[in-house]
């Protein structure tokens, strides 16, 4: 009996053992298969996740780049050959007027501008605007700007548009009107104050926006300065802004420029600007912007005191349409006007009205009418009527504009 039990136990255990071995074998096989699946998966993943890019590709670091095109069709009651001779008494004599934009009756391609921006490193940003006129290449601006200085300081260096006044810094394509305000055109010419130099700006740590800036520039602008035997132009300004309620913001500025003119004597320019903007909705606003500039220019033979202002009102109706009107004039013209004897040199002024149509934020059609009472042509005051349709586009990666 005992033997039988032992025998049967033996058989049973060997049977069990066999069964166990089979089970283990099967498990092993399963594991093997699983590992195979895993390893094929892994290798395919590896292939996907390994670096497949070109070895020296730097595409991710390309600067933002945009093409800005500006063109116009002009109708004017003065011949092109006459218009070229236009003078502004006391400021710009016959033949000295520089017309980079919208000069011709008929069609004008004003410029193709290549605007670039890139972060250089954790400390600098770089900007450049290359102006391509039909027969000319110009570095409009090219500068670096710091991003991480302490105490709210920022330094800009290179060739740039000065932050003097309100409109000086802005590019032609972002102006509310295509033509430059008379006082800017007469004091600085078409490029405004744009020069090689350095700028330092500081924002006060207050609830109200208060910004103070100083600039040292070469002073190459011959209309007001022009003695560039060394860096001779110094600019300072103070800007502040407050909000009244949610929707009305007021921005004001005081600016001062001190330089040396071509007679190597001092030129001082004072500027006051005020901008009110009432936001009427997401796409609708009313903007009233005005600037007054006075220039005191010492010359070997005389002392000039000249001033002027512009004031413009722009009603943005919706994201497609906006309407605007501007008045600009010369308010003071104490200078040698003997070359204009017999010519009325008072009340140099201009009226402009416009309608903008923007099908999309990147394109703009602008129809404007200008009644210009500021020009003398061929020794006579000549009032000029002008109707212009201009088209401006910004294609590509063009950053948002400042306020």
């Amino acid at each position, binding site marked *: 009996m005992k033997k039988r039990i032992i025998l049967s136990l033996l058989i049973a255990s060997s049977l069990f053992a066999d069964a166990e071995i089979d089970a283990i074998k099967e498990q092993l096989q399963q594991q093997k298969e699983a590992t195979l699946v895993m390893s094929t998966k892994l290798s395919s993943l590896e292939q996907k996740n390994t670096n497949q890019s070109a070895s020296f590709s730097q595409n991710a670091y390309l600067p933002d780049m945009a093409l800005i095109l500006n063109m116009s069709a002009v109708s004017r009651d003065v011949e092109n050959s006459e218009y070229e001779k236009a003078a502004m008494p006391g400021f710009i004599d016959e033949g000295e007027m520089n017309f980079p934009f919208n000069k011709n009756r008929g069609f004008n391609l004003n410029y193709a501008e290549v605007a670039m921006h890139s*972060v250089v490193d*954790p400390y600098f*940003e770089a900007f450049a605007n290359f102006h391509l006129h039909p027969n000319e290449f110009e570095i409009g601006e090219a500068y670096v*700007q710091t*991003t*991480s*200085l*302490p105490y*709210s*300081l*920022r330094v800009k260096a290179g060739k740039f548009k000065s932050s003097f006044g309100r409109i000086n810094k802005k590019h032609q394509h972002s102006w509310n009107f295509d033509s430059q305000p008379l006082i800017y055109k007469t004091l600085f010419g078409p490029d405004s104050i744009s020069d090689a130099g350095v700028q330092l*700006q*500081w*924002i006060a*740590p*207050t*609830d*109200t*926006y*208060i*910004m103070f800036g100083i600039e040292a520039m070469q002073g190459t602008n011959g209309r007001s300065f022009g003695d560039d035997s060394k860096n001779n132009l110094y600019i300072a300004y103070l*800007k502040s*802004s*407050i*909000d009244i309620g*949610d929707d009305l*913001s007021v*921005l004001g500025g005081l600016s001062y420029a001190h330089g040396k003119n071509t007679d190597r004597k001092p030129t001082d320019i004072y500027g006051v600007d005020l901008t009110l*903007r009432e*936001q009427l*909705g*997401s*796409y609708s*606003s009313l903007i009233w912007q005005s600037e007054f500039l006075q220039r005191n220019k010492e010359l070997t033979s005389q002392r000039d005191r000249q001033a002027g202002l512009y004031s413009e009102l722009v009603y943005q109706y*919706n*994201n*497609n349409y906006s309407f605007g009107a501007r008045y600009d004039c010369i308010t003071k013209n104490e200078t040698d006007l003997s070359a204009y004897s017999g010519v009325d040199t008072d009340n140099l002024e201009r009226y402009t009205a416009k309608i903008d149509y923007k*099908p*999309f*934020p*990147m394109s703009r059609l602008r129809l404007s009418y200008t009644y210009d009472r500021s020009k003398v042509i061929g020794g006579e005051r000549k009032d000029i009527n002008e109707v212009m349709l201009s088209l401006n586009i910004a*294609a590509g990666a063009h*950053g*948002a*504009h*400042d*306020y």
Partner: protein
Amino acid sequence: MKKILLLLLAFTTIVSAALRVETTYSTLGAITEEIGGDLVNVHVLGSSKYDPHFIVPKPSLLAKLRRADLLIMNGGGLELGWLPPLIRGANNANIQNGAKGFLDISHYIPMIDVPTSVSRGFGDVHAQGNPHYSTDPYMVPIIARAIMAKLLELDPDHEQRYHSNLEKFSYRWQKYLEKLDAKMKQCKDKKVVQYHELFNYFLKRYNYKSYGNIEPLPGIAPSSKHTIALINSIKKNKIKLILQDVYHEKRTAKFIASKTGAKVIVIPHDMGADGSKNLEEYYSNIAKKLCR
């Protein structure tokens, strides 16, 4: 006198101890307040009554950003048209892109509607996908966690409090979502059209289907041709809801409604756009309007 001076000093240090946080929109601001509590001083740059793509970069905002310790933005291209010049003009090293005090929430969000190809010929398309994720209440905890991680990084001394704030808020939000889901379950009519693709995240969350937009392309004003096509689609698909936002013109939506019998409902795109005072009220208002 000395006591008063001391008190004043103590007070000013308390005031300056709070982290100054600027957020681009209200919903982000409200979530930051939940996590930061009185350890943060939150200000919102863009008013929710305006189109979030077109906030005016007022100089007064520069004064705010100049003193900020942290800037929290929505990202996904929504601020592209107004924030960069403000960051550039604020002269504040803390909040530059890549600095410690800069937080782009979209980097934490599973974005939808990511286009396979991008051109301005398709209108104002965001290459990164639809940036209006904050309309989905399920994104709130994700946003809250991202904000907490950033606050910890900037202010490690108060780790405990940020953690407990997040815990409390997450619990409260879980309970709220259960209630909201229950409410949304009762909704049967799941067909809508919208003005702009503002509500895709909310609609997707609750299985709605959007059949089209009033604007023919993102950022392009309605055209008669497109409006007629939309009217036909509404009739054909028996759509009864037109989702309008607070800031676009409402004429076109009303016209479409009059031709189709569909109903125009104004949905807030951000907390406060409809006067809502807190996060729960904001999302409940969306639900209430969609689901009647």
